């Protein structure tokens, strides 16, 4: 890998070629405030929070749009930088609802982090208020444009990562907002509900309807299609309450589709089978494992060899399928074993 070395705040920083100054700084553990930056998306330069001074360059370039090259000397904490950041944050805060305590982004809010880093201690500018209704048409998440900071991470993710393009900017100036085609509710747009916008929103403008946060996470693999996306199941008590894409997975690099991210409620579904059932007098009735296994073992013994067949499952793990075919061949004495590979 080609490396470049630059100086940020007097510190020598080495990183891979092709990254931006912002990424080089963040990778080196030097925080530069930012809202519109996303490692999966092309630099956008919308929020003007990541401005820095760079020797030999005029003005205050946005560090997300400058490529890190050998020998650059960058200063992130000068008074001019601070002044620009402060005004940018103040303008955002003046137009932002102050419901932080009950906001779904609480504890995770990009705007709060930026404001606190810049050192905002009071709201100096006159408050404005947006009168946008909350779009609750999507079954899995809310869209509250009053909280939107126009960073465009949602718009860019939908366009650049997912290739769907359900949303874009509409109008100009103060009227500017993120909208679907014709400004219809999300459910009436071409949105595929994958939630890549939701995971990227730095504030509370796009939030899952299910608010419960997990108390622990378990790394596993999605059980739907053959892609095998890596994901973390978020667990609270004995219930799966959230799903998060695994960015380290070589398969999906953190991306998930609507089924993987929002389609796991079947795990906790009340219709789950919880006890063996044995047919008695024409009806399936609850039985103990011992009773059920006795029936199965004694009845299967009546049909040895090719009078029997085993049908395995393309949804079940390898270990289970191995045991099933071993059972068919070694215990039942038949090669009549197959599954739905052809369907």
């Amino acid at each position, binding site marked *: 890998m080609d490396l470049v070395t630059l100086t940020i705040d007097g510190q020598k920083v080495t990183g891979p070629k092709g990254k931006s100054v912002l990424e080089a700084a963040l990778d080196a553990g030097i925080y530069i405030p930012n809202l519109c930056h996303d490692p999966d998306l092309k630099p956008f330069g919308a929020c003007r929070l990541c401005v820095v001074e760079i020797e030999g360059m005029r003005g205050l370039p946005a560090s997300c749009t400058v490529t890190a090259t050998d020998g650059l000397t960058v200063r992130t904490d000068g008074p001019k930088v601070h002044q620009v950041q402060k005004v940018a944050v103040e303008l955002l805060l003046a137009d932002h609802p102050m419901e932080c305590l009950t906001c779904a982004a609480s504890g995770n809010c990009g705007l709060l982090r930026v404001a606190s880093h810049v050192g905002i201690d009071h709201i100096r500018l006159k408050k404005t208020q947006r009168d946008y209704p909350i779009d609750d048409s999507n079954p899995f998440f809310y869209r509250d444009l009053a909280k939107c900071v126009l960073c465009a991470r949602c718009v860019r993710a939908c366009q650049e990562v997912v290739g769907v393009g359900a949303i874009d900017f509409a109008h100009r100036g103060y009227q500017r907002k993120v909208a679907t085609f014709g400004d219809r509710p999300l459910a009436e747009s071409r949105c595929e509900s994958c939630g890549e916008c939701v995971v990227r929103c730095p504030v509370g403008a796009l939030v899952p309807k299910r608010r419960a946060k997990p108390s622990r996470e378990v790394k*596993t693999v999605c059980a739907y299609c053959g892609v095998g996306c890596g994901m973390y199941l978020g667990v609270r008590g004995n219930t799966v309450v959230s799903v998060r894409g695994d960015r380290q997975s070589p*398969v999906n690099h953190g991306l998930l589709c609507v089924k993987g991210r929002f*389609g796991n409620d079947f795990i906790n579904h009340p219709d789950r089978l919880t006890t063996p059932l044995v047919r008695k007098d024409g009806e399936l009735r609850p039985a103990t494992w011992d009773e059920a296994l006795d029936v199965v073992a004694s009845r299967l013994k009546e049909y040895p060899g090719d009078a029997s067949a085993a049908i395995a499952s393309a949804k079940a793990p390898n270990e289970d399928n191995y045991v099933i075919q071993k059972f068919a061949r070694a215990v039942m004495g038949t090669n009549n074993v197959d599954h739905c590979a052809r369907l």
Partner: protein
Amino acid sequence: MAGLATSFGSGAMTNSIAEIGDAACVLAIGTNTTEAHPIIGHQVKRAVRQGAKLIVINPRWIDLCRFATVWLRQQPGTDVVLLGAIMRVILEEGLADRAFLDERCEDFEAFQRSLGAFDLDTAEKVTGVPREKVREAARLYAGTRPASILYAMGITQSSHGTDNVFALANLAMLTGNIGKPSSGVNPLRGHNNVQGSCDMGCLPNVYTGYQAVVDPAVKAKFETAWGVALKDKPGLTLTEIFSAAHRGDIKAIYLVGENPVLSDPDASHVREALERVEFLVVQDIFLTETARLADVVLPAASFAERDGTFTNTERRVQRLRKAVEPPGQARPDWWTTCAIAKKMGAKGFDFKEASEIMSEIARVTPSYGGVSFDRLDNGGIQWPCPAYDHPGTPILHQGRFTRGKGRFTPLTYRAFLEQPSPQFPLLLTTGRVLYHFHTGTLTRKVEGLEKLRSEELVEMNPADAANLAIKDGDLVEVASVRGSVRARARVTDHSPEGLVAMTFHFAESATNLLTNPALDPIAKIPELKVCAVRVGKKP
């Protein structure tokens, strides 16, 4: 998968998912990737954003057509003719990779002779694709390397699916698109672990790792490993099992985690077969339509409630981990099967946890020889992985095909079996939508997904709809010689004239009551993608 195994020596995806985005050309045929494998769909779109050419071959308009350099809309079931014509253009215009053909492949001449039947006149007539588009696709695919072929059930679920796969394997070999990054022939598997179920020997003719049951050395090896006498005669495939059960030859079925009453073609025949068997055991997480027919139902743990491994479509063995306890007395499937085996007095089923089973798999399976749970924490391993110090194999057939040389197969065009008739004048094809999976056992339990799509829709062309006086949203009856179902019509030019499309996610409109169980003679895959139907408005 039989087709690829014959051509290359291995029936699996030759390359890896992450490579698709770096291909210079992607040929997507018989796959509605953005609906069925959305994350692979993202890779295709990534390739296009980086300048790749995209060739879409599909009778129906699919979302990928928005990104396509060229879209070939062939008549259903004519893929062999179309691909044959594309290959003929490649040869005639000198676009083949001669060095690759000479060094790496065999049986080229017989294949070349078979292309005689696939001139552009014939192709245009049979497939309905204009010759300019055939030429354009040939030049794009052969002239933009590396080129990656993606295909799915649109290719395989046909009475001549193996011919289709041979054609794709030939096409890749002809242009040297094998054994290199971002190239290859890539079947996209449907279920999370359909690759793994095949790898594990849940097939009637092979043990784990595709070791043939007819091979005396393999038989001897498994007899030693398992300590029992084994049969050397291949068993019956799924569709054959149901026929045998229907005839009364198979009397007991042990069925784990499948729902053939909805998923299999000619579903009423399947239901009758399961009703006729003397003893049916079903293991599942829900009381499915199939489980309701069982004599004993055993509750299973879901993927979130257990440890184990899935093997994805790119041959990557990945760990799943227990996140929560199973509900009530539900148990992992392996535990239950072992408990039955032990009750029957069998030896060799004393596993205490899933990792011990993987150790046994590794001992008897050369391609999984180096797989163990402790190696799977970061990103998994792609087979073949013969030893514990082997890193796995992201790209197959590098330098040498698994079978030695790549084998060209002569092409023959066979029309699909059930042509339209006066009584059943339309063709029905089956597909999937993004919001549901297979028979809907899982996704229809998710309220939000059900809100996004809650019923079957019969997609039909505006011209066909007008002929039948059907309007968008009308309730219609779709009937084939085997049965009939009802659903609402969606009038859309996504379907060409003469073709209607349905999913099979919805039990209320069980599409597989209509479909044809006729099998491909080699792969034994049923012809789910085409059958003849009539559609009529219901008051």
